[in-house]
């Protein structure tokens, strides 16, 4: 019974999120475009699936993963845990005492990104549009690594207390330099994958980690230092996705060069064969 009421509450919340989209789409369709939607029935069923799916997904996260994730974030940042191996609790922890936090940040960043539905959507589209050159998993893993690095660095920043904008601005510099070297095709997609990483799954867990850290690290205020992890999680995938494309490009070039060699040797074989005839 309890589960049912939770479900209906979540369904209402999802509907409220989807409602403006539905109103806009169908409003424009009927008043401006004035043409029936092709395969309307199928589209409507699809929308129903999306709403039900999102509701179940959010409800499940809320019930299972978020409570544990949040609890973990607070436990891992708890001074009592960080000092469990040290002799005295009175000493001020250095940035290296938080190694479990960094590992957690890395792992949770990568694994939540793999589970992020909007990234799956963009990866499917990119795979379709590129005619298979960009593989769904390749893109997702590249983004996941980027988010993982970003969140780890972000956690280190909260612990060490460096100003946020130094990191972000130097990240921008790397991105701008990469633009000139990465294959042109990937650049827009790389920017987009920075934006999609931070949605339903990643944000709540990462925000809990940031707030937990900012609360327990001496000298940090949750209001000023708790923010900023999301910004890291958005910046670094851009770098890794472009890097992934550079790598893929390099491998294709090498494969092509090898193929050319092979076909050239084929050519000589047929030539000599034809001579013999």
């Amino acid at each position, binding site marked *: 019974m309890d589960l049912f009421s939770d479900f209906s509450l979540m369904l209402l919340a999802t509907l409220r999120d989807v409602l*403006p*989209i539905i109103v*806009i*789409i169908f409003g*424009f*369709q009927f008043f401006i*475009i004035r*043409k029936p*939607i092709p395969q309307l029935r199928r*589209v409507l*069923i*699809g*929308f129903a*699936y*999306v709403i039900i799916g999102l*509701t*179940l*997904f959010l409800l*499940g996260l809320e*019930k*299972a*993963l978020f409570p*544990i994730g949040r609890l*973990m974030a607070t436990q*891992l940042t708890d001074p009592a845990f960080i000092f469990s191996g040290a002799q005295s609790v009175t000493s001020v922890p250095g940035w290296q005492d938080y190694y*479990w936090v960094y590992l957690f940040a890395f*792992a949770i960043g*990568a*694994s939540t990104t*793999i589970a992020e*539905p*909007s990234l799956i*959507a*963009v990866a499917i*589209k*990119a795979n379709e*549009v*590129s005619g298979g050159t960009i593989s769904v998993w390749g893109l997702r893993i590249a983004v996941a690594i980027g988010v993982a690095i970003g969140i780890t660095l972000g956690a280190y920043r909260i612990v060490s207390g460096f100003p*946020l904008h130094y990191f*972000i601005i130097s990240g*921008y510099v790397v991105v701008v330099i990469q*633009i000139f070297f990465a294959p042109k*095709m990937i650049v*827009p*997609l790389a*920017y*987009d994958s*920075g*934006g*999609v990483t*931070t*949605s339903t799954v990643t*944000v709540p867990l990462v925000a809990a980690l940031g707030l937990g850290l900012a609360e327990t690290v001496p000298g940090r205020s949750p*209001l000023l230092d708790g*923010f*900023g992890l*999301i*910004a890291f*999680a*958005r910046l670094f995938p851009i770098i890794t996705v472009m890097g992934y494309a550079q790598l893929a490009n390099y491998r294709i070039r090498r494969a092509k060069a090898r193929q050319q060699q092979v076909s050239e040797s084929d050519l000589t074989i047929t030539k000599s064969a034809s001579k013999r005839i």
Partner: protein
Amino acid sequence: MKQPLLALAKATLSSLRDLAPLIMVVAFFQFAVLRQPLPNLYDLGVGMLFVVLGLTFFIYGLEMGLFPIGQSLANAFARKGSVFWLLCFSFALGFGTTVAEPALIAVSAEAAEVAASGGMIEDTSEARQSYASGLRYVVAFSVGLAIVLGVLRILKGWPIHLMIIIGYGLVVCMTVIAPKEIIGIAYDSGGVTTSTITVPLVTALGVGLASCLKGRNPMLDGFGLIAFASLSPMIFVMAYGMII
């Protein structure tokens, strides 16, 4: 009848694979690092089942509903040839999906608190409320504007990297002059604007537009709308912090 069932089973399996890393990470930290038993096993099991089913349904519906409608809207607008209505639609989509976003409402409330504690506004609930709702509308407006700009870029074929570099330049300049309290929130605000339903729709729209316009490459021109939508709130939120 057998085929859809098989497809569903396959989709469920791939959802399980998507979630496996997250489950393993949580389990590892719970057992090996924190060394604690799992609380409330029943809730956990039911929750995991929901997550797997939910992801399966979502991906299923995505390819059935969201992608086709984005594509068909893009086709219809391209055939109609009315740039004005296309831009209206883009703005409505950006603004409408952002203004009601729960994550944005939460962030703007927190931002108001930061502003009040920093002495930027009076510390009364009224002042905080008006600050928060102002911020919300500013972010929603900036997302609408970003989608409009992005669609214009697809139509005109402007180079994306120049626009992004200019955007980054603006962010960096504003960071220097904006009040310190607002910077963290501004940087994070870009992340709350891209919800799970907006992203596939906007992506399908961009790719659809780029593939039915002559001389546009869907890979090169179709992507990038989301990048704009997550960059522009940073600029606008910092501007908001400077003006108020």
